[in-house]
């Protein structure tokens, strides 16, 4: 199953680069959905011997949320708030791509120098997880729109979830569900907030929100 695992992990990397390099918001949202599918399928490829009904259910819920519901919510926020679909980065797309690749190299080097106390199911898994997490944080910082910040948060969460996959064969079902529920509500609340931001400020540019200081 290494072939499948590598395929899914490379898909995640590609989705990261896609988010970093794309200049249109709808395209970024599609990249997020794509990453969601890859992440949702990962447990099956990583632990082919451990497929249970719980796991299948969980994967289904996870994929539905990450590939259908979240993109839909973000898109609706995009449409209803009539946001200009340009990404408006602080840091240009070229540099962003370099950062994305650098984060991957850094993560690989990190795990070379500090080997894990466990044998992860795939050599690539941990570096990809950490790199995804870093890319998410980078998007959060380097893009101006509130919507892209929410997007960055979701990429960040994907990275953490992938990391968790390497550490825990399967967390207790209740915990996984709780985490998913939390992220779901986070996106939900963020979507609503984005809508209000657009109405109150007539823009989603977070630089405009700078009244509170001191």
């Amino acid at each position, binding site marked *: 199953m290494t072939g499948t695992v590598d395929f899914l992990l490379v898909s995640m990397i590609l989705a990261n680069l896609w988010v970093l390099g794309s200049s249109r918001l709808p395209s970024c949202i599609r990249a997020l959905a794509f990453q969601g599918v890859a992440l949702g399928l990962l447990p099956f490829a990583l632990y082919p011997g451990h497929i249970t009904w719980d796991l299948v259910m969980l994967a289904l819920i996870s994929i539905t949320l990450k590939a259908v519901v979240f993109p839909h919510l973000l898109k609706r926020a995009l449409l209803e708030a009539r946001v200009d679909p340009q990404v408006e980065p602080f840091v240009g797309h070229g540099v962003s791509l370099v950062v994305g690749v650098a984060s991957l190299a850094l993560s690989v080097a990190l795990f070379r120098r500090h080997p*894990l106390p466990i044998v992860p199911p795939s050599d690539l898994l941990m570096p990809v997880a950490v790199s995804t997490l870093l890319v998410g944080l980078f998007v959060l910082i380097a893009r101006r729109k509130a919507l892209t910040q929410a997007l960055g948060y979701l990429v960040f969460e994907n990275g953490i979830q992938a990391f968790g996959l390497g550490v825990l064969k399967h967390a207790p079902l209740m915990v996984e569900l709780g985490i998913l529920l939390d992220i779901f509500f986070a996106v939900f609340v963020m979507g609503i907030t984005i809508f209000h931001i657009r109405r109150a400020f007539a823009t989603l540019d977070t630089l405009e929100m700078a009244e*509170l200081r*001191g």
Partner: protein
Amino acid sequence: MGAVHLLLSVLAWNDPPGGGWLGLDALGRVFLGITSLVFLAASVYAVSYLRDEPAGMQPDMGGEDPFSNAKESVFVGCLLLFLASMTLVCASRHLTLLWVAIEATTLASAPLIYFHRHRRSLEATWKYLLVCSVGIGLALLGNFLLVLAAARGASGGAEVLWLDGLAHGPELDPHWLRLAFILLVVGYGTKMGLVPLHTWLPDTHSEAPSVVSALLSGALLNCAFLGILRAVQICAGAGQATFAQHVLVGFGLLSMAVAALFLLNSRDTKRMLAYSSVEHMGILALGVGLGGGGVFFALFHALNHSLCKAAMFLVAGTFLSTFRTRLVARLGGAIHTLPIAGGVWVAGFVALSGTPPFGLFLSELGVLRAGLQVNPWIAAAFLASLATAFVGMARVVLTVALGPPVLVPPVRESWGKSLPPLALLALALMLGLSVPAWLAEGLRQAAALVGVS
């Protein structure tokens, strides 16, 4: 509802349920008690508060940009969800469940902060959502690293996340454990408002309706502190208590110093209270970091601080609805206009600055003594920050209460709004005069659970 919750909490104090995913240990009991008390006061206040809020559009503080309120039903619903998630924080026996609960508190409170629908509260809500969600995401990563640290142990991996068998001893790999602890402190510390992760706190506390500010400061910050204490418990169980304590002393001193400097320059009543919360969270972290008697006094401090700070925020809310401004420059003579609220305001300041006969004096003295035993310089820095904060707060509080009056005729105060802060402050005063034996015993058990020496 608040009363029912308090009643249940009292029952739970005497007969802690346990086992499985949920259960109350001595620590959870203390924090549940605090949450419950503050919630009761805030909910009583909220009844009159919501009654007095005008329906429809109302002018903004500065006069520009009229705004309306969110629906009351949504507000009350989120308030109850907020209480439920904080209760879950106190009762979690599994670290990931704790994480889920703390994240849930963020999400339940975000709509509360955006109750007044104007641009400033929206900005605060967005900041709060993002900063806390990302911070708490890091704490989840910390949980996973804990599992890694335990991977070589006999029981292997995921068992470490249960809070029941904490004596892991040397089974945990120290390097990964330290990394996990740092991530957990950064994650939950964001929520608790430790400098330099506190950036959301002053904005959120100042823009939220005062009832919500009282809950955020009095209950939510403590819940996040409980998250950090759980991490300390694990470190102590694995023989890494010293490392954890050093980290906490650093964060504590930094928080106190920075908050004290911001307090010197505050122009806004609620922002001042928010920075004072940052300062007191620093004291909590410092107390636990110093160890010894410091832990006991940190917990006692958490209780007292919650009572006083909630009272202060409620009073600040009364000022806001009477004078329609939070700016110190436009406030004055509150003690003439609103005798009860103004009195509570001054008394609350006396309490918060750690003056006898209030409970905070005892706890700050206890932390100071612990500091002197460890390192006199820590004690000196602690005292310097306290003094700076005192000067900063005194200026604001005394101007507001005793300065030249802006509204001369006294306004009639409703009991619904003045009773809750009075009661909270009276409790804090009682705690300063004598600590009941059952409470001292409960706190001692809780401090012993933390496990640092």
